[in-house]
């Protein structure tokens, strides 16, 4: 970029001098642009004379015989050719050496060779044509240190992204920065608009994001136009989505037999007189799952000239989910422009508009189908929904009919306008003003219905919610870049930014709204009498602001010794004025050993660089206003002979005035290597992220919970990235693998070291305990030591109230007379016998990504794996009464079948204590994606006026290898709460997507 700008400046500012020389002309091509590449700088070596190629790739300039022309273009190898005649055509090769690769760093770009931090870069082609709604889904397995887990297999759902472990029990989501705008979520982006994604992982690269950098930053750069010929590209794909794996449940006859057995054991009557006559019954999964569909169309126009470039795109994405009635669609538009107004002043804009609609279904529907009574019919012969007489599980078919009128729409405008001024040769002043405007509008309509006394709604109910989110971000930066004496390169960034965000929500409910058509589902047609006082209406708002100062200096000595010092000072409205400002410094150093004299004769390496960084980052992902002691309203009481409501309110949440941000202190040591002319590259990083002042939601007893800066933890491990890229004649291939290890451990819990309880199952039981010396959200419960076989065994055991067939828990601990733990059995099973039962955080995860091309064919195969994590099978662990069973229940303990692994069946009681009986290994290897494409030969197309055509087939998540018995081993956890990670309950499984697609370029 710099060179081109420099050239242009010269062209614009200096009078053109002409020597009496011959005119040389020619065309510059590349393999990708056989017709000619515009915008290539052509310069006569050793002079200031030069030009750039026109939109058809042609150039023409004056040069003498024997002069050397230098052709340069970013991303291509700079090539020199001597002038031997009047024409000189050149084909430029792409610059595959990573040394020249440029990566985005905060508030700028940098040669990868100069970077002292740890940054993973993903290019557009690495995630191209993946059938996903959001780019983060396509990043799974693509970058070392980045673990992406699907939370819900519902269309448009955002995955859970964790960079270098789980940093906090609170919100560990990274910050997304899209063309400079800070956002929480990038679902508004069409993935195909993305040029590159750079994941900032270490302190040196993150400190410039200060108090918001602790969980890592994902920098997204969208595509911009290039000066030259206008290109128009269309891409469309379509296909189907399917559940990979269905859990096998008992059929009607088997279920009835089991229910009878339990009823009799409980001292009651058999519920089903003739189980054998019931046959297979209803498979509820058939009623809630379907083959979904997916389609996406987009068109992009891109081009420009020396002064103006543009990239304009539009896309439409539409997905019907694997659960009936779930759907998501999105329309996006993007306009990215740059304008060169004068030789030293540029402006530009990146503007994106998106509109989405999500048709939501209750995530619990999968659990309902799993639990529902298979002996009943979805709809009986009388046209009425069936209902169970033995359980209160809702009829899933009726849930689908009545509880799925839930539509959320949104419109979002995200973008910025910026100006850049170069002055005094080395200075650039940039001012950027960005906005993120979001409007959400949702409707939930619950009709009046009656299926049974436990599945009914007496009065129809309409909920409308409208939200307006407004964020502006103003950033001013001044950069100074100069090389002194060819030895010292100094790049200094100074900046000041401010951000203000505000959200307003208005929500109201009315009853008795008619529901025969969408045209009448409006509040004004409802009954004001009857909606509950708390809901009617609900008007909330919040706002927060940040003010920040930036400083960074990059210094390189002789291109060998690198130093980066960065610092951000942030003030945030989330904290009280006395502790509002924080400073986050970091330092990074690098040594390009390959450029040392002594390496000249070492032929093994083509690149060798050692780097290290250390610094401090913050996390303010906590609710607003926590430092204000607030009053809870709506605690109304009834008084008076007329029994009227009198308003009540009081302080319930006690104050947490001293609350401050969480701090992450990170050390990173990395080694970058290249071999065989960088065909083989390798990168190894050791990282150690220490979180302190972690904000916890702490049970402080007596029904109170507070948020406090209570805990510390670390995540440390190694990251390996290895790439091999080569070609043998027409056969080109690349293999890129990455592997990450994570050791997560809580080192301190404030508040007297009270462990944090989490992972609630909704039946009063909690599955995880976060304690010192253990991973965040580790599973905690009893150890199963077998099954009681006889009444004698029970009598002589630590569980005298058990019955034969019940789980025997290990008696591991007891207390002495003074109440201290002894570590020895005490002849009874109680809370002291609970132990840690594994971690939900993978110890190792990896990705293995390959691509091959031969002539017109291309193939990309991506694998991903995760190891060492456990899953709590919450589906099986929650029973209220006579839910359906998994087929393993047929192996239950009975007097005839004295099982030693499966307990007798009960509807609750001691066999449902939290124990390792419900814990399974969560390791898996998944074929994440396969893509096979064919590009038509270009000579065939030129006659048709088409530049390129490629057709492909793609399969996302086609095959998974795992021992886990549930739907899918990819379990993010309920609402991505760090303390319920790996608890498989109310989770809609990850699914398989198979698509065919077509790309056409004009």
């Amino acid at each position: 970029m710099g060179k081109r700008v420099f050239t242009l400046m010269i062209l614009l500012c200096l009078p053109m001098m002409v020597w009496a020389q011959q005119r040389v002309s020619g065309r510059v091509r590349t393999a990708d642009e056989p017709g000619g590449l515009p915008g290539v700088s052509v310069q006569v070596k050793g002079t200031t004379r030069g030009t750039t190629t026109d939109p058809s790739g042609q150039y023409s300039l004056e040069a003498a015989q024997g002069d050397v022309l230098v052709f340069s273009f970013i991303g291509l190898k700079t090539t020199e050719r001597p002038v031997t005649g009047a024409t000189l055509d050149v084909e430029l090769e792409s610059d595959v050496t990573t040394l020249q690769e440029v990566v985005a760093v905060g508030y700028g770009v940098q040669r990868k060779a100069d970077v002292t931090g740890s940054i993973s870069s993903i290019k557009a082609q690495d995630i191209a044509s993946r059938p996903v709604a959001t780019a983060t889904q396509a990043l799974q397995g693509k970058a070392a240190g980045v673990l992406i887990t699907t939370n819900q297999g519902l269309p448009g759902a955002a995955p859970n992204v964790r960079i270098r472990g789980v940093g906090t029990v609170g919100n560990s989501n990274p910050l997304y920065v899209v063309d400079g705008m800070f956002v929480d979520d990038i679902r508004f982006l069409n993935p195909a608009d993305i040029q590159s994604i750079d994941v900032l992982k270490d302190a040196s690269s993150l400190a410039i994001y200060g108090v918001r950098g602790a969980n890592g930053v994902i920098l997204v750069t969208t595509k911009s136009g290039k000066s030259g010929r206008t290109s128009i590209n269309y891409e469309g794909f379509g296909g189907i989505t399917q559940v990979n794996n269905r859990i096998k449940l008992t059929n009607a006859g088997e279920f009835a037999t089991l229910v009878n057995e339990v009823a009799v054991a409980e001292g009651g009557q058999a519920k089903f007189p003739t189980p054998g006559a019931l046959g297979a019954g209803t498979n509820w999964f058939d009623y809630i799952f379907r083959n979904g569909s997916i389609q996406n169309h987009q068109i992009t126009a891109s081009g420009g000239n020396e002064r103006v470039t543009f990239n304009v795109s539009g896309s439409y994405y539409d997905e019907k989910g694997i659960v009936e009635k779930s759907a998501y669609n999105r329309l996006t538009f993007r306009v990215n422009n740059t304008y060169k107004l004068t030789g030293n002043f540029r402006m530009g804009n990146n503007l994106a508009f998106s509109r989405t609609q999500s048709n939501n279904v209750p995530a619990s529907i999968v659990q309902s189908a799993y639990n529902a009574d298979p002996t009943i019919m979805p709809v009986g012969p009388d046209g009425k929904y069936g209902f169970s007489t033995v359980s209160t599980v809702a009829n899933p078919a009726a849930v689908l009919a009545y509880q799925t009128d839930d539509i959320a729409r949104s419109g979002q405008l995200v973008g910025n306008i910026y100006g850049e001024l170069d002055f005094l040769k080395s200075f650039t002043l940039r001012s950027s003003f960005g906005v993120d405007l979001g409007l959400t509008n949702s409707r939930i309509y619950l009709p009046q219905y009656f299926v049974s006394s436990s599945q009914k709604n007496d009065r129809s109910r309409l909920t409308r919610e409208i939200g307006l989110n407004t964020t502006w971000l103003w950033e001013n930066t001044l950069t100074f870049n100069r090389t002194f004496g060819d030895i010292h390169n100094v790049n200094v960034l100074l900046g000041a930014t401010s951000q203000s965000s505000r959200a307003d929500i208005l929500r109201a409910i009315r009853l008795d709204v008619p529901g025969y058509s969408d045209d009448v589902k409006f509040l004004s047609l409802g009954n004001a009498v009857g909606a509950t006082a708390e809901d009617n209406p609900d008007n909330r708002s919040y706002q927060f602001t940040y003010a920040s100062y930036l400083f960074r200096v990059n210094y390189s000595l002789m291109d060998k010794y690198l130093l980066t010092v960065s610092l951000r000072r942030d003030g945030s409205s989330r904290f009280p004025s006395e502790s509002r400002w924080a400073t986050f410094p970091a330092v990074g150093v690098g040594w390009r050993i390959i450029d040392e004299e002594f390496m000249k004769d070492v032929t093994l390496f083509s690149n060798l660089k050692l780097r290290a960084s250390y610094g401090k980052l913050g996390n303010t992902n906590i609710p607003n206003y926590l430092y204000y002691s607030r009053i809870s309203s709506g605690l109304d009481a009834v008084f008076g002979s007329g029994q009227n409501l009198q308003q009540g309110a009081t302080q319930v949440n006690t104050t947490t005035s001293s609350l401050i941000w969480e701090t992450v202190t990170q050390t990173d040591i990395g080694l970058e290597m290249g071999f065989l002319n960088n065909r083989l590259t390798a990168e190894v990083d050791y990282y150690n992220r220490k979180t302190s002042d972690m904000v916890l939601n702490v049970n402080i007893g007596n029904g109170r919970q507070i948020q406090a800066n209570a805990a510390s933890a670390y995540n440390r491990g190694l990251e390996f990235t290895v790439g091999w890229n080569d070609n043998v004649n027409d056969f080109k291939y690349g293999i890129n693998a990455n592997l990450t290890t994570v050791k997560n451990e809580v080192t301190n819990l404030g508040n007297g070291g009270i462990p944090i309880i989490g992972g609630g199952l909704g039946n009063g039981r909690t599955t995880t305990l976060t304690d010192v010396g253990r991973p965040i959200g580790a599973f905690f419960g009893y150890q199963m030591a077998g099954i009681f076989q006889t009444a004698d065994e029970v009598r002589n055991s630590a569980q005298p109230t058990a019955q034969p067939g019940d789980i025997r828990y290990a008696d591991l601990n007891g207390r002495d007379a003074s109440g201290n733990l002894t570590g020895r059995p005490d002849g009874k099973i109680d809370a002291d016998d609970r132990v840690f039962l594994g971690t939900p955080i993978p110890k190792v995860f990896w990705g293995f990504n390959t691509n091959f091309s031969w002539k017109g064919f291309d193939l990309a195969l991506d694998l991903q794996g995760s190891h060492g994590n456990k899953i709590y099978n919450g589906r099986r662990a929650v029973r209220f009464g006579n839910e359906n069973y998994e087929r393993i229940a047929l192996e239950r303990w009975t007097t005839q079948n004295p099982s030693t692994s499966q307990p007798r069946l009960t509807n609750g009681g001691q066999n449902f204590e939290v124990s390792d009986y419900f814990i399974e290994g969560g390791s898996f290897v998944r074929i994440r994606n396969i893509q096979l494409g064919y590009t038509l030969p270009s000579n065939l197309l030129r006659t048709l006026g088409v530049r390129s055509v490629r057709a492909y087939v793609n399969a996302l998540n086609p095959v998974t290898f795992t021992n886990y018995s549930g739907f899918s081993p990819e379990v993010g956890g309920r609402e991505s709460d760090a303390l319920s990670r790996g608890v498989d309950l109310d989770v809609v499984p990850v699914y398989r997507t198979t698509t065919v697609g077509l790309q056409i370029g004009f």
Partner: protein
Amino acid sequence: MNTIAKNWIRVALAGTLLLTGQACSEEFLDKKPQGELITEDFFQSQEGALKATNAIYWQLRQWPTHIFAFLAVSSMTSDDAEKGSEPGDAVFLNEFDQFTVTATNFILNDFWSGQYLGIAKANQVIQRLPGIQMDETLKARLIAEAKVLRAYFYFNLVRTFGGVPKITAIQDDNAPAVPRASRQEIYQLIEQDLNDAIAVLPEKSAYAAEDMGRVTKGAAKGWLAKVAMYQGKWNDVLRLTDEIMKSGQYDLKTPYEVIFTEAGENTSESVFEVQNAALPQGGGGSQYAEVQSVRGQLGWGFNVPSEDLVKSYEAGDPRKAATIIERGERMPDGVVVLPNAVNPYYNQKAYVAQNETKSPNGLGDSNKNIRLLRYADIVLMNAEAANELGQSQQAVTSLNAVRARARGSNAAVLPDVKFTSKEQLKQAIWKERRSELAMEHDRFWDLVRQGRAGQVLRPLGKQFVEGKNEVMPIPQPQIDASGGVLTQNPGY
């Protein structure tokens, strides 16, 4: 102007923009909560004082305080009631029925939290109101109301767990966990609070009509009498119950079968009841009735009368029919109970008739007031205290007053009890308490107080162990939250 000068002006401009163009003032970073009150503003006015007091009453109709956990702890434990409902539904409640409850039973933790959340709200009022400039009479009354309710919550705790942490001020988040006080200290606190309140609170009739349902002098005295009875302070019991009986605020004129209907709410029988209303906009009721109503027909069917209770009534006692719903029974409002209902009996004292007012949220938000203290209880306490103190004449009079009301117009049943011995009369009063107060959250604690819980409960198959099951285990989450400062009760 030369170029260099121009450029340096640009640098200066750039610097100015960087440093002053940003809204970096503290004002820009001050963002107050929107649409929410903050404590320092709220506790400045009479309105805030009143609302904060009302919030304590709100707690009384909440799930952890008086619904599931309360039924489990106070009722299913007794010989009057069983878990009920489908055998497989909410099996964790069986642990209360069977006395197999352990510290990890979450219902127990609900109960603890439900009481302490009320105590915390009372402490807000007791501690903050003195600083508010407002009507001093009203201020004193509101503080007194808070003290009575605080005493009530502590009474529930001390009856259930024995000694518990004594928390009488707003608890600072960072304060160390409070260890358990002794049972004696908690009783002293309760007595202090109630005595303070008695000196201030108006009698029931002195309240304005719109304030009906607030705690009264009579309620404070009634609870103080009960607290005294649990400690065997019979002189206090007699004195306090005499005062209540002479106050002119209460009588036994409400027919027994009316007391638990909507018409029987807040009558002269009522000493204190938690006000619930089925309001047109909802939000004024509780789930108390729903969880106890006929399973499969009206509600969830928990906390059902036991066979033992049904058999315990004297022949012809009309209170049996007013307390117990049987299968196939035709209710006064015409509803016919399912002849094949899951359970043989349901609690009629929690029954909501079809002709009573309904919330849009149904029975889950019902109007049923939760009767916590009735005049009959006062009169029976009076009888028991008089008997203990050798004043058998007054004991017999009080006891027979209760029987006379129960008898109604049918002179053939429930004959007057005659004194033959102190022990005979004590047994008669205890029996009368059971029949009169059945399903009213009194029986289990009464049995423990009388020292015969094991003797009564074990023949019914309940595994009550003396020296252990008089109190429940301290909930494990509370011990965990205290970092081990709370000690477990013996035997658990």
